[in-house]
């Protein structure tokens, strides 16, 4: 079942890195699946897609290519948004400061993208 697959993919990510929450979101801002606490995941999903799409438009303006990720570095937490295939993105909440968290998130996003492509 799809829901179980999404759950497993986000569970794997959480097991590998210091992650506080994560969402799989369609590129146009609709929530596909979330593993979060104490937030409104639909709003977080819509805003994450806005972050990534705004970054794409800005990068396009400067001919900078496709953005690999968007990082919002807050006082207490970070939001990391990474494309997961052509139709989805992975948005992650973390307090981790080590840069290796990016690798784990990018790998996870790739897995999600591959999974969604298989489903099509």
């Amino acid at each position: 079942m799809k829901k179980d697959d999404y759950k497993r993919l986000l569970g794997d990510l959480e097991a590998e890195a210091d992650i506080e929450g994560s969402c799989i979101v369609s590129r146009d801002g609709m929530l596909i699946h979330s593993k979060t606490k104490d937030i409104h995941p639909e709003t977080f999903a819509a805003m994450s897609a806005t972050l990534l799409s705004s970054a794409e438009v800005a990068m396009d303006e400067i001919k900078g290519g496709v953005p690999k990720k968007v990082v919002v570095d807050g006082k207490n937490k970070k939001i990391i948004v990474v494309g997961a295939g052509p139709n989805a993105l992975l948005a992650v909440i973390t307090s981790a400061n080590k840069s290796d968290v990016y690798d784990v998130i990018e790998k996870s996003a790739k897995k999600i993208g591959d999974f969604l492509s298989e489903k099509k």
Partner: protein
Amino acid sequence: MILTGIPKLDEFLNGIPEGKSLLFHVEPGVEESNIGIHVLHKNLENGLYGIYVVSESSPKIVDKVFNEFNWNLDKYDNLIIVDGYSSLIGAPTDKKYVVEEPHDIESYEDVLMEIIENIKGKGIIVFDSLSNIMDMCGEKKTLSGIERINDILSGEGFSSIYNFIAWPYKESVMYRMKRIFNAIIEVNNIGDTIMRQRMFIKKVDWSDSEGKKLEFKIFKPEGIRIYIPKISVVGPFYSGKTTFIKSIAHKFTPVERLGATVGVEYGIVDYKGYRAEIFGIPGQERFLPLLNKIGVSSKGVFLVVDSTKPEEFDFAKKILGEFKNIPYIIVANKQDLPNALKGDEIKERMGLKDATVVETIATEGKGVYEAFELMANRIVEDLNAR
């Protein structure tokens, strides 16, 4: 009249007349498939008797489900639970009405007849799992029993609802099922990534709504909602898009700086059985690239215009041109200002004579729900026309 509690479905069906039977034919794998319990709750609220036949799991599940939807079980002295489960596993039960022989459909009939004799009034009977009873009692025997039950119920002013998981039963069994129920609504998952389900009215012998479909989702604690994943709100700068969304949404996330929207706004609307997610896209030309990214897959578009600024109508039309083949409504906002143009004139000036225009004063909440309801109905019509 029995209502399903899903306003649009009730509109299609004209409710469920007394004595009729309705089968929710649910594809395996659909989560939250117990639609019958929502119909039960609606009719308990309306003061009718509700008999709930539990055969798939312990009657305690009823407490659990009622809690999930913030329904207070103790409030309903018109609810009667028939325990068809405890005897099966030899567990004690505190329920008054118990199916002593859960492998025998006649035992179900006996209990139901006893209840009907004991109570005075009309109502609804909901079976939590017809498929489970069929597995216990045998397919053909169960269906014969259900035919007898439906016959008796129809004479007593009771309607019946059956939840049925459509495992691969024999063709002859499925054929018989199609024959014995007055209405069959198929429920299945929609095959794309956004989780939602679809109801399809496969059969109904009391209204002309066969073939109609609705997309829905079950929210906790709110209940079943006809679900619209995305409606975009667009329009020129300072036309009142944010105020419009704010006035219809029960949850709203503004992205404003110095009175102007600088990002995508998001709101949720819950109205008359609909749940819609609303995406507001800023109106300055420089934000138009976001339209293509966030606006795609919208099921409908609100084009908000300032009715006092005809000079912006061309740009408004240009924005609308970014959306192809989806329902749209022109929201003629700021009708309270002097020189506000009326809806018909706006349509004419925009060269969109067939468009639907709703005149609004978003700051006062006037006309906004009318616009939403029109849009939601238009989206359902669009779904049914495809």
